[in-house]
């Protein structure tokens, strides 16, 4: 029974790893000193992006058309989203609108 259970979890882990690899790469954008770093990120559909706020003050990560939005990120809080073809690539911080950045999205997961 124990052998069957561990074999099953092994299959699930492998399946999850395969799904994760097929879903694309993982990128991290740091918010530090009122800058999104990197400010321009080249990604593909299916990639995953995590934003982490390293500033004392809260920020947001918000599409310019409000189609995607992290909500308030306090210090050291993070938020992630998967990249979808056709999603709004330009984003900013609602609290500090001079903070702007852009995603350069390609549709090919393997590129």
């Amino acid at each position, binding site marked *: 029974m124990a052998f069957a259970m561990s074999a099953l979890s092994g299959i699930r882990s492998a399946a999850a790893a395969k799904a994760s690899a097929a879903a694309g790469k993982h990128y991290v954008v740091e918010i530090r000193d009122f800058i999104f770093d990197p400010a321009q990120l080249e990604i593909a559909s299916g990639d995953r992006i995590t934003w982490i706020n390293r500033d004392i003050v809260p920020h947001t990560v918000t599409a310019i058309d409000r189609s995607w939005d992290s909500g308030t990120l306090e210090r050291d809080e993070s938020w992630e989203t998967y990249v979808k073809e056709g999603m709004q690539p330009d984003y900013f911080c609602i*609290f500090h609108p001079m903070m702007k950045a852009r995603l350069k999205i390609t549709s090919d997961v393997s590129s």
Partner: protein
Amino acid sequence: MNTKLFLSALAISTIAWISPSSAASPSELNDLEIAHVAYTADSIDIRYAHLALAISKNPRIHEFARTMIRDHTAVNEEALALLKELNVAPQDNFLSQKLSSDADQLVAEMSGLSGDAFDKRYAENELGYHKAVNGLVETAFIPNIETPQVKALFEKALKIFKAHEHHAEMMVKSLK
């Protein structure tokens, strides 16, 4: 070493430690007085922001004011946490008192305004206030702060306040 000279130096340094500072210029303030000025300056801007939320009908002014409340509160909390860690208390001084009395006058003036007149006055004051405080922090405070952790906090805070200055500039332009 000359014992008489040593005892005189010790007496002078002890009196300097227990007596209030007689600083007459911002660059003469000690670290605890500088911390007090920073806390006062933050609190004043929070006060202006609450006034703006109460009087202005402009959504952009409201967004800016809420950002000022969020950000200056965060800086003050960071400063208080640091002072607690260092086991010291901020010291009142001539500059904190001057900032407070000037703020009282400005609040009285802005309370009598409404509509576009208030929005313009608030935005222009935010730009001028942040410019003045940033200049003070950059030229008079940071070069003279002795405690490394306090200096590091002020360097972080200056970046925040410069972003505010830029934001206030955008707000002033949008109201023209």
